[in-house]
């Protein structure tokens, strides 16, 4: 860190100190691609986008460490130069999100069930706390069980425990070959087929369904992909069309994502169709289903619970009612963690849980 860097951190510490003393809250913001996301947006904006840059990237270690403000495009370009990538495929929402925001939100793309979720790739993190301490958890190595796994806890925390100043992520080599097959199936047939295929040693890396078409992506060794074609059947999708579809799915840019009211329902992969008059967009081989414009009298949380799922009101939720409510014992653990990490409620107050 040079002098300019110290100045940035010092300025942040001052803002934190001032907020703490004044009883106010700071709203942490990277590139703002997820301004719509979270329960409540409170406090004065603290811009984190200027704290950027890749700190360390050695392809043979399969690890990249970068500052929180580093744009996704910069990370992906660096990785692509060495035929590597972020296998959890974070959504960009049509913008260029920062790495800190990506990890704080913890959202994962179509490879979620096949390669892992964002948190599965988090190896380490640095956290600037409400006390102004810069803490380091985890590291830049593949295996690390020293102390509690706080770096994974920060993934998906929406910034309520402190400022993620730096993260280290596991990266993977790009698959040798990637190919998409398209099949005409009903939603129910698609979910059944996805689950059957996932029980077989096939190189799947995406399984989605929308408007009567199942999309199946295969990635891996050339021989494995070729051998899988026959088992999946269907038609080969031209590479450009395939790229367009997976990219729109990953970045939440298909029509159902943009409706006025959208429910994101996560459920056991083979769960039967839930009783809703709309057809979903299905991702994650059946485990993620998006429902647009569901009539308001339908209790989506209840319908999801009936099949052991959870429903998140992605768009169009009344204030404070976006995320599924937490059971009392778990909510109290959240409050106790927040009280200990950020007793004055400086960081992103109410963003993950209303009032916390």
């Amino acid at each position, binding site marked *: 860190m040079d002098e300019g860097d110290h100045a940035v951190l010092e300025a942040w510490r001052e803002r934190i100190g001032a907020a703490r003393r004044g009883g106010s809250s700071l709203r942490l913001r990277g590139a703002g691609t997820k301004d719509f996301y979270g329960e409540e947006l409170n406090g004065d904006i603290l811009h984190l986008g200027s704290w950027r840059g890749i700190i360390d990237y*050695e392809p043979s270690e399969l690890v990249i460490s970068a500052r929180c403000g580093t744009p996704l495009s910069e990370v992906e370009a660096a990785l692509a130069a060495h035929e590597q990538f972020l296998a959890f495929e974070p959504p960009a929402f049509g913008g260029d999100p920062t790495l800190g925001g990506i990890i704080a939100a913890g959202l994962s793309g179509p490879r979620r069930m096949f390669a892992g979720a964002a948190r599965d790739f988090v190896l380490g993190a640095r956290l600037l706390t409400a006390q102004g301490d810069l803490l380091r958890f985890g590291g830049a190595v593949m295996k690390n069980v020293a102390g509690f796994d*706080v770096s994974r806890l920060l993934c998906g925390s929406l910034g309520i425990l402190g400022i993620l100043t730096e993260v280290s992520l596991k990266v993977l080599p790009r698959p040798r070959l990637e190919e998409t097959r398209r099949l005409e199936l009903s939603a129910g047939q698609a979910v059944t087929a996805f689950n059957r295929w996932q029980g077989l040693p096939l190189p799947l890396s995406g399984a989605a369904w929308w408007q009567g078409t199942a999309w199946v992506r295969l990635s891996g*060794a050339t021989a494995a992909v070729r051998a899988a074609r026959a088992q999946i059947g269907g038609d080969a999708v031209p590479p450009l069309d395939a790229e367009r579809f997976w990219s729109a799915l990953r970045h939440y840019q298909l029509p159902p994502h943009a409706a006025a009211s959208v429910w994101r329902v996560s459920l056991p*992969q083979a769960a039967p169709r839930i009783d809703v008059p709309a057809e979903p967009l299905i991702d994650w081989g059946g485990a993620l289903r998006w429902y647009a414009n569901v009539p308001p009298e339908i209790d989506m949380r209840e319908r999801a619970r009936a099949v052991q799922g959870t429903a998140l009101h992605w768009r169009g939720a009344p204030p404070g009612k976006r*995320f599924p409510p937490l059971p009392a*014992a778990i909510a109290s653990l959240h409050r106790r963690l927040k009280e200990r990490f950020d007793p004055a409620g400086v960081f992103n107050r109410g963003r*993950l849980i209303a009032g916390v």
Partner: protein
Amino acid sequence: MEAPELPDIVGALRAVLPAECVLERAEERRPYECDGLTAFRSVPAVVVLPRTEDEVRRTLLTCHRLKVPLVARGSGTGLSGGATPHPAGVLLSCARMSRVLEVDPINRIARVEPGVPNLKISEAAAPHQLYYAPDPSSQVACSIGGNVAENSGGVHCLKYGLTVHNVLGVRGYTVAGERIELGGQAPDSAGLDLLALTIGSEGLLLIVTEVLVRLIPRPPCAQLVMASFADVQSAGSAVAAIIAAGTIPAALEMMDRKATAAVEPFVHAGYDLQAAAILLVESDGTPEEVREQVQEIERVLRAAGATALRVSESEAERLRLWSGRKNAFPAAGRLSPDYYCMDGTIPRKHVGHVLEAIERMEREYGLRCMNVFHAGDGNLHPVILFDANEPGSWERADRFGAEILELCVQLGGTITGEHGVGLEKLNSMCVQFSPAERAAFFAVKEAFDPDGLLNPGKLIPTLARCAEYGRMHVHGGAMPHPDLPRF
């Protein structure tokens, strides 16, 4: 902590539990005095063997009311003293909670009780051509509850991940008896990722009573490549070269000559005893995939200077080649009255450097050390050979180990890759973490267990302890009173 009168806790437990669940006679408690790290021993005040979740809850409520410490135990194979009992506390063994509750081949999950041995899960899933991927070498014995507590890995976690990547949910109880359900079959779950926090928490946060794991299809085919190297540096570079070539093998293990020489006489694995180090590189998948990957691996290993290559031609040969690796610890036990297995992780590129440093330390401490490890993950398992009956020998082994771990931290690595901190690595935690970081760990602990009753004194060193360790370090690395037991 003030220990309550012994009869109090036993009587209170007897009042809420069936008689056969509570062991109080000295000879019944004795077998629980240590886990796999036998250098640490202490007999618990009482042992509880619950059969049901409700009995776990009652035990917790009782401990909570009387403020008595409780240490959970799975199969006791842990290598860091995580399950070492508290002398004034309850040792809660999950051994009788060992049922596989559900195998769902369609959703590809299994629900199991915490005492189920790791391998039993894969056995239960086998009829569906599915298995549970993390495979610690102790998998015949170690429990899934212990695996969750330690975030255990295995030789195949390079490709398939650690426990944290393969456990979808847990049910557990706080020390106050509150039931906590984390994760589940639905991949999204609301709020903070307390499941990730619980995995690897060494029994300090929750007592786990049920585990939901992901099952994956068993690869139809696997082949193992054994490569010999004339020096450890080039073996280390070959590891990096394989990863850089864009292949992730199913396993990538290294053994140095001391290790191969130790196992070969009794396992007859067929290792190249001339080689300074061997690599065991496994490929798995469909036959086409394996053929392609093995060719690639052979090419990279040759280019990296392998002096000899052998590819397993049959399943029997593959298993034989693995048997040496899997029996490395028992082999150490045959070579030496005692051995001490370390568990640091480093960036892969430093493998050669660390092995050389260990050779220097062998001379310095006058002890032998063989190296068997998960090279693909940079996870070292130096095995230090010593004789506990020889005065000062254990202390030297302990310091030797601590020095290796400090080197790991210096190189950007960690003091434990998969065995956990327990009691063993408390001092090394002072090296890896600042006081503020350790305070954050205590903050997490307090949020779950404000009275500090679950597995007290493990995982996080106190400020006083680190200050003491720091003082000892000032004396040029030489410990004061090496003859006194320090734990």
